[in-house]
């Protein structure tokens, strides 16, 4: 039997489950259609939230495929928090295990990118590091220092041309994706998150910084991936987009 709310929970997300007993139209007549209002409200609200969260997935799959997929997902993975802005956390793993879409192996990474864009949009504001701070730091001190990334910065590693896939489906006239691996960096200089393509070595450098490595260690990570790694273009991009917040020297 369970409590009233257990009965509701079971029947709300399972259209084959019987409607709980003891629900009436107000005059005492039993009703199924009235319970179905709640079933419909919950399902439609969750599907709408997923449509909002994953516009590129929706475009890639088309509404005729996305909506049924979202319905299956919503019933299997209802939100675990009232913060609907982050609903869909399990979508990458769900897509990884969804046999009918196995041939579109890049979809889970597209979902990861779209979730990261929302995290970035709602992340804390931060003051950008002044390039003068880096310029004023003696090179030997600098290489033992750590750079903190802004709270809005997100990194999504991928073996797919992830940035090009995202751009092709969001920017009119963007070139078709080529068969190349692209990880993605998200920055947020103002209020709008902006994705950028990363080489494998650039990703390695950023990932090292994000996990607390100093600049020597980050350089070693990047060089191990690509011996010709040049930090300058990446550092310029990070400074230009407010992606760095503080330089922590070994003395700090």
């Amino acid at each position, binding site marked *: 039997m369970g409590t009233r*709310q257990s009965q509701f929970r079971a029947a709300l*997300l399972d259209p084959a489950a019987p409607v709980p007993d*003891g629900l009436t139209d*107000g005059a005492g007549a039993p009703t199924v*259609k009235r319970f179905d209002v709640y079933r419909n409200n919950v399902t439609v609200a969750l599907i709408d939230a997923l449509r909002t969260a994953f516009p590129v997935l929706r475009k890639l799959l088309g509404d005729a495929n996305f909506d049924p997929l979202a319905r299956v997902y919503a019933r299997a993975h209802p939100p675990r928090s009232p913060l609907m802005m982050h609903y869909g956390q399990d979508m990458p793993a769900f897509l990884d295990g969804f046999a009918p879409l196995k041939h579109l192996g890049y979809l889970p990474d597209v979902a990861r990118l779209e979730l990261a864009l929302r995290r970035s949009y709602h992340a804390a*504001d931060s003051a950008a590091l002044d390039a003068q701070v880096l310029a004023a730091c003696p090179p030997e001190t600098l290489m033992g220092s750590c750079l903190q990334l802004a709270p809005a910065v997100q990194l999504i590693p991928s073996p797919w041309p992830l940035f090009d896939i995202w751009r092709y489906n969001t920017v009119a006239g963007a070139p078709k994706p080529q068969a190349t691996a692209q990880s993605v960096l998200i920055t947020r200089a103002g209020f709008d998150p902006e994705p950028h393509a990363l080489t494998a070595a650039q990703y390695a450098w950023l990932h090292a910084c994000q996990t607390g490595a100093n600049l020597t260690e980050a350089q070693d990570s990047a060089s191990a991936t690509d011996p010709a790694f040049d930090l300058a273009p990446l550092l310029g991009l990070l400074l230009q987009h407010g992606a760095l917040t503080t330089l922590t020297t070994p003395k700090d």
Partner: protein
Amino acid sequence: MLDASHRSPSLPKAPGVGYKPQHFDALRSEPGPVTWLEIHAENYMGDGGRPHAQLHALRADFAISVHGVGLSIGGEGRLDPDHLARLQRLVDWLEPASFSEHLAWSTHGAEFLDDLLPLPYTDATLTRVADHIDEVQDLLGRQMLLENPSSYLAFAESTWSETEFLSELTRRTGCGLLLDVNNVFISATNLGDTATGYLDAYPLHAVGEIHVGGHDEDADDHGAPLLIDSHAHPAAEPVWTLLDYALRRTGPAPVLVEWDNDVPEWPALRAEADRAASALATIPAH
């Protein structure tokens, strides 16, 4: 029970609208009769970015009402401590003129079902909801308003009428009420009651805010009318009539226009606010 010294600042007795980000510029340049805004608390529980920046700007010009849609005041389990902490942070930051939530539940175990789900009106529900309201009011150090739901069905085990249930909650907890006249009209139509009969039995003295909004029309298994609370249209004529009926008894009150789905351009929402202003203009001060 809330200490009377914790009476909170109140909203202007004037029209307000549910805030939508697409109306940010229009609200600042031509607010019309709108002097206050209501936000859904959960949409501003991120850490920063544009949502927070817009609120920072708006709170300089408008009184703010924080309206929760995710606290699950009627839930069988305990209130989510993480969510309470987020709510407290938001209220501490915004210092809103009002905080309100719904007589409903939405969380079960660890799951959030993203709808305002109905409650049987029993002694057990009354005790549980009163305890949860006490917990919220103690935490926030302020009075909260509780909104009447839109009902599509009734529970065989209910032993209280909704109006008696709400009256008893205000007595036990000292909470105020958010009277949604669209919900009153929807529930009365759906459950075969009269809306004015509901208002005659409702504790109007406890009202701190009134909602008007739009609904959809459907029919139930037996062909009886079934109204759906969609907030996707202008308010229907009978809802405006009900607003007049309520205002003649409460005196001037903060009146909010809700429009959450298929949100129109600003002029259409402003026209609804103008209509609320007209309704308020005919009411003598009590």
